[in-house]
Structures are given as structure tokens and as C-alpha cells.
């Protein structure tokens, strides 16, 4: 196969980027999209040109590190991760435009690499159950209905790749945040901090500069792990419930 690639090149966060066009005529339909870029890079290095930088790691669709906005869609034409996208999904002679995720909260680091640490900070704001190691009850002490466990697992399957943000016209992170909020809101282990958690995580999400949700379902349509927007509705509920009904007790430290 022969392809024309239009790739965003940007030296670093401070410099201005631009599209560069490459003709790639060593493409096999069995290559994954990232392998296609590997081969391109191998050729570039041999020619003494700087290779295209892109994030990737596990290459089996689970680590969430690969990104790439391919021909107008995050992770390309299929609802999967870029590493699981194969060149047989493209036609010989096609022009492919490859851009980084675009969002104020995801600044470009270099070429197609973006900084997604905003996701980490949102999780740090409350995406956990406050238990220390040891001193926890037996795993079977609290029964969890199978349907609840399954629904929590559906939400927990999120790989944090950021395709939802990339797909959303508002660069909103609601699908990502709601998946995490849902997992803990559903499970009994998440109950003690349920209200504070959603409040803090939403506040951090806003702090990072993600947009609002217009319920366009673009995120759900692109999510490689099929996270549903029912999670967003659940997060909204959780948020209102927290804001309207949270306890009035203010914690004021230990006794004297």
C-alpha cells in the first residue's frame, strides 16, 4: 500500500507546529497503525530526519497511552485504540491526517505527544477509597450484587486514554470522570466518601479547563472501552445529591 501522511510536527510546547506531508510506500495491510509509523520513523532516521514522536506502550489496547487523532476521529475509524487499528482499515493511495489530541487541558509536548496529567490530578482529587494497607475486612464480608459489580466493572474498564476529550467538541472530560465516580458510587466500598468524592473530582475537572457536556454522545461513540454516557447521568445525580444534601458537619481536627 502507498499512503500520503499529513502529520502534525511541533518541536516542543513553546514552539509553533505545522503539518508535514510524508509519502509512505512500504505499508502492509497487516501492520498496526503504530507499526506503520514505526516503519516511517525507521526510514526517517535513515535519512537523517527526526522521527515522529507519538505515545505508545503496551500495544494491546489496555494501557491507554496511545492517542492520535486520525482523519478526524480519535483512534481512527474504528472504535478501538490506535495500537489495535490495522492498516487494512485504510485504502491504498489514501491521505491520512494525523493530529495530536487537542484540548486546553492536554498541552502538546512534542509532535503527537500530549500531556494528560490533568487526568491524574482529577483522580488525585478523590478517585480512591481511603483505606490503608492492612486492617480491612474479609473480601466476602460485604456482598456485592453481581449486577452492581458488573456495572462497576463496565465503568472501571476505562483506560484513561483521553479519546472522550479528543472526540468532544467541547473537550469535556465528563465521560472519564463519570466512569471513575460511577465505579465508586456503585460499590459499597465507595459509600463513605461518596459525596465528597464527586464534589472534589468535578471541582478539579473544572480547574483543569475541560469543557461542559452537551450530551452529543461523541465520547461514547469513540470510547475504545465502550464506556456509556449513563455514567455521566449518574455523575450528575451524584453531584446534585452531594451539593444539595451533604452533611453539615465540618471536620475540625482531633480533640484537645
Amino acid at each position, binding site marked *: 500500500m502507498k499512503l500520503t501522511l499529513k502529520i502534525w510536527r511541533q518541536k516542543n510546547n513553546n514552539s509553533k507546529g505545522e503539518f508535514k506531508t510524508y509519502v509512505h510506500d512500504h505499508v502492509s495491510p497487516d501492520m498496526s497503525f503504530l507499526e506503520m509509523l514505526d516503519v516511517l520513523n525507521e526510514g526517517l532516521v535513515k535519512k537523517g530526519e527526526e522521527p515522529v514522536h507519538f505515545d505508545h506502550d503496551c500495544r494491546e489496547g489496555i494501557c491507554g497511552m496511545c492517542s492520535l487523532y486520525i482523519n478526524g476521529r480519535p483512534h481512527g475509524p474504528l472504535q478501538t485504540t490506535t495500537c489495535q487499528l490495522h492498516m487494512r482499515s485504510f485504502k491504498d493511495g489514501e491521505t491520512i491526517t494525523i493530529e495530536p489530541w487537542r484540548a486546553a487541558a492536554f498541552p502538546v509536548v512534542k509532535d503527537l505527544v500530549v500531556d494528560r496529567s490533568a487526568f491524574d490530578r482529577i483522580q488525585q482529587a478523590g478517585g480512591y477509597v481511603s483505606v490503608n494497607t492492612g486492617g480491612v475486612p474479609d473480601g466476602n464480608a460485604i456482598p456485592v450484587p453481581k449486577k452492581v459489580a458488573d456495572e462497576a466493572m463496565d465503568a472501571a474498564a476505562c483506560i484513561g486514554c483521553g479519546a472522550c476529550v479528543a472526540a468532544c467538541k*467541547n473537550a469535556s472530560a465528563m465521560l472519564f470522570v463519570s466512569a471513575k465516580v460511577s465505579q465508586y458510587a456503585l460499590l459499597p466500598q465507595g459509600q463513605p466518601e461518596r459525596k465528597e468524592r464527586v464534589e472534589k473530582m468535578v471541582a478539579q475537572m473544572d480547574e483543569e479547563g475541560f469543557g461542559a457536556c452537551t450530551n452529543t454522545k461523541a465520547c461514547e461513540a469513540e470510547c475504545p472501552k465502550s464506556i456509556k454516557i449513563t455514567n455521566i447521568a449518574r455523575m450528575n445525580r451524584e453531584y446534585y445529591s452531594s451539593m444539595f444534601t451533604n452533611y453539615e458537619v465540618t471536620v475540625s481536627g482531633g480533640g484537645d
Partner: protein
Amino acid sequence: MRSIFGFLYKYFQTRPTYMNWFSQLITSTIGKKLIMALTGLFLISFLIIHCTINAMIFLNDGGVTFSHWGHFMGTNPVIRTLEIGLVAGFLIHIFQGLLLIKKNRDSRPVRYQVEAPSPKSTWYSRSMGLLGTLLLLFLIMHTAHFWIPNRSNQFATGEELNLYQMMLNIFADPLIVILYVLGCISLAWHLLHGFWSAFQTLGLNHQRYNSIIHFVGTAFAIVVPLIFALMPIAIYLNWVH
């Protein structure tokens, strides 16, 4: 002594946070959407009444029934008070919507070169701002035609205008009819997404009730704008006279 200081300390410590939660709620992205959803649903309820009363023209009784109810709506003190809420609802929905457009644009300062969204996401859901802006333009024209002259006249003379006659006059102009029909089409698309979207924003998304919400939303988005659009058409084509 200690307890007085303790009380004062506690009072000053907690006082500034009093109602803080509310401002936090309405300034958060979710809270802003909550306002859009609530005002949107309120405006939808207004549409039902507006549409029902205006549909009285189809009785073709020379506007008797229509004028009767129009008079009621224009003079009943309860309705007049509620009207203030309606104006506020419009203004809040419009301004919040514009602010959200601004915020959402700022969230992606660099646009994509190529955009080809998945067909699972509808164009009109992604164009609520555009449809809303069209509706705003329509609303300005529409209120300039009826509501503003009528209310100013009431304010100045205490007399209502003959809205039925005004309709017959205004919809004699084919250009206006076309603009009204276009306004109704924008309204249809806006409602087609907005109705369901309001429920989603309120967190009302449940397997058991989704199909009914979708059905009612779709029916509403088709029926109400259709009835509205038929009014100028019917008058222009002299079905109603």
C-alpha cells in the same frame, strides 16, 4: 469567655462559606448545564401553553376563542407575574448558553484540521449553540412582531392589541412566513436534542424510562414546531381567515 471566643471563631470561620455550596454548584460545568436543563424544560412547558392557545386559530371562528384566551393570558395577574419568570427563563437560558459556548471554545483553543465525527453522534446535538442562536434571532423578530408592541401598548394605554388581526396582517408577507417556518425548523432540531438532553443533564437516564423519554421528546420536537409552522402557512394560504 473561652466559649464566647469559640463561638465567634466558629461563626466567622463558617460564615463566609455560608451558601458557598450554591455558588460552587451553579458555577461548575455541571451546574451550568443544570441551569440550561431547568430553564430549557421551563421554556418547553411554556411552548405547550403558547402552542395550545395559538392553535385556537384553527377553529376558524374569526379568532374568538383565540382572543378570549389571549386576553386571559395578557391580563390575568397570576399569568402576568409568571411572565416575569418566563422572560427571566429566556434570558438565563440565552446568556448561560452563550457563556457555555465561550467556555467550551476556550477548552479547545487549537481546532482540528480534519473533523469527521462518528455517525453515532448527531449533527444537531453538536449544533445546539448554532440552533440556539438562530432561535434567538427568530425570537427577536417574533417578539418585535407581537409581544413587544402588545405589551407597550398595554403599558401606554391599558388596551390590548388585536393579536389575531395582527397575525393575519403579518403573515400576508411570504418572506415572513418563510422566516417563521425556518424558525420552527430550528426549534424542532433544538428540541429534538434539547428535550432528551435536559433529562440526561438532570441525571434522569434509566434503561426503563429512556424509551419513553425519547419517544415523548421526539414527538414533542415534531408536533409542536409543526403546529407552530402551520399557523403562518395556514394564514398565508387563507385556510384561516
